[in-house]
């Protein structure tokens, strides 16, 4: 993956987070809490669970469609980060060959079940994380964190990180490109160069930090980053959370999917 792709991906996700849809306007706290509960519920399913995970795809699908987030984009990002989970998970079918079920005459090993479970959980958890940031601006998430009790110091510097993320990525790109233009082929790549580039970037970063601090002082900064109370919880936020929690509870503890299957089987008998 090149620098450019990463940079544009982050930029795109960042821009998507400022869109103007119902989902985007939900209070960040509601979305953060809902997402975390969703994730927790998903991973709380046992090792071999597959069927009961199906309904949970409704959550990311709703966020994605109502939030107008491009599907292919999300899927691509999911694929990019899948290697670790897939790589570890693939050992399951290799190592666990006990037969677990016989479906339509095919015998499935427990290992394949747990692997599939891992893949499904991966899809659900990763898409939920991506959709959280796609539908909630990063500053929104930060404000949610602070209102949820995270230390102000941590959140303040997190906001600074975000603010200067793109600035520093662009600066890094410039430095790298300048080097690329001066190195022909294999000479000029590798460790020494990398260290030099990082060193230069570091010094520039330090100078920038100094200038920013000066700018803050010039506008009266004396220790605490001030802020105005912004969002208030609205009815729709509470409704969103209530519905989500109800959904999670119902589909976690009641075998609805299997029930639907049984009903369907009866109907077709």
């Amino acid at each position, binding site marked *: 993956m090149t620098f450019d792709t990463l940079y544009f991906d982050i930029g795109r996700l960042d821009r998507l987070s400022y869109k103007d849809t119902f989902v985007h306007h939900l209070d960040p706290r509601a979305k953060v809490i809902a997402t975390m509960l969703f994730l927790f519920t998903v991973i709380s399913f046992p090792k071999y669970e597959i069927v009961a995970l199906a309904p949970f795809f409704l959550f990311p699908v709703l966020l994605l469609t109502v939030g107008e987030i491009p599907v292919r984009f999300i899927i691509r990002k999911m694929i990019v980060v899948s290697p670790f989970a897939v790589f570890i998970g693939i050992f399951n079918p290799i190592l666990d060959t006990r037969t677990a079920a016989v479906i339509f005459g095919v015998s499935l090993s427990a290992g394949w079940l747990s692997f599939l479970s891992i893949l499904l959980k991966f899809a659900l958890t990763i898409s939920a994380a991506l959709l959280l940031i796609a539908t909630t601006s990063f*500053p929104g998430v930060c404000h949610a964190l602070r209102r949820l009790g995270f230390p102000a110091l941590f959140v303040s510097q997190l906001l600074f990180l975000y*603010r200067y993320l793109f*600035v520093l990525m662009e600066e890094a790109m410039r430095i790298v490109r300048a080097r690329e233009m001066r190195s022909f082929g294999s000479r000029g790549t590798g460790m020494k160069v990398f260290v030099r580039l990082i060193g230069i970037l570091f010094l520039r970063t330090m100078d920038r930090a100094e200038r920013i601090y*000066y700018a803050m002082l*010039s506008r*009266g900064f004396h220790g605490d980053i001030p802020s*105005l109370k912004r969002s208030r919880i609205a009815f729709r936020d509470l409704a969103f959370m209530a519905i989500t929690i109800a959904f999670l509870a119902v589909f976690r503890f009641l075998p609805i999917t299997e029930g639907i299957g049984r009903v369907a089987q009866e109907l077709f008998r």
Partner: protein
Amino acid sequence: MSHHIVEFKNVFFRYPDGTEALKGVNFRITHGESVGVVGANGAGKSTLLQHMNGYLMPTSGTVTIGDLTLTGKTKREFRKKVGIVFQNPDDQLFMPTVFDDVAFGPLNLGMDEASVRERVRKALGMVNSLDLQDKPPHHLSSGQKSAVAIASVMAMEPDILAMDEPAANLDPRSRRSLISLLKTFKHSKIIASHDLDLILDVCERCIVIGGGAVVADGPSAEILSNKAFLEENNLELPLSFQGRS
């Protein structure tokens, strides 16, 4: 309005590494004046500006605004009176949204919410950027960032506006907007810049810094048309005075 008179009396400044950046700077700026600070790189323009709000303190000599002399204790007061706009707006817009940036100053002044919102509205209105309120700074263009940076300083309603290379990163159109905007400001303005044409347009008076001292101080039209003098100080005639050769 004597309490707005900016005065540098025999100001010397030496950096920790020994560089003598200012060697006896003297000048006086009265209320409402528009003064350009001009000089080659390294002449001391930025250093001079950094004394105006107490980021740097003179090694010897005094910096005063009205009755207030710059000391460690009076720095905060100076920062209320002098608003500095930096060369790189990215350094100056450090909050998550434009609104937050413009509100930063007033909030630090201890104002209540309603007054802060009013200040932000006024300041952004002054630079025609009200529609940018909720945007994060990194989504803005250079011209927009410059405008918002100015707003963030103006929101503190300083008596004196100091600017360091305000047009450096602007495209011609944004630059033109900036010049028109500055002409509408009634504050005392101190503008350090290489852009001699901008200085000509905006500042009726001009101070030339050379080797850490003031080498000329007078009407811009006069000083900036003196070719020989300018070249002596590693400068050139403003482009608008140069013929096409």
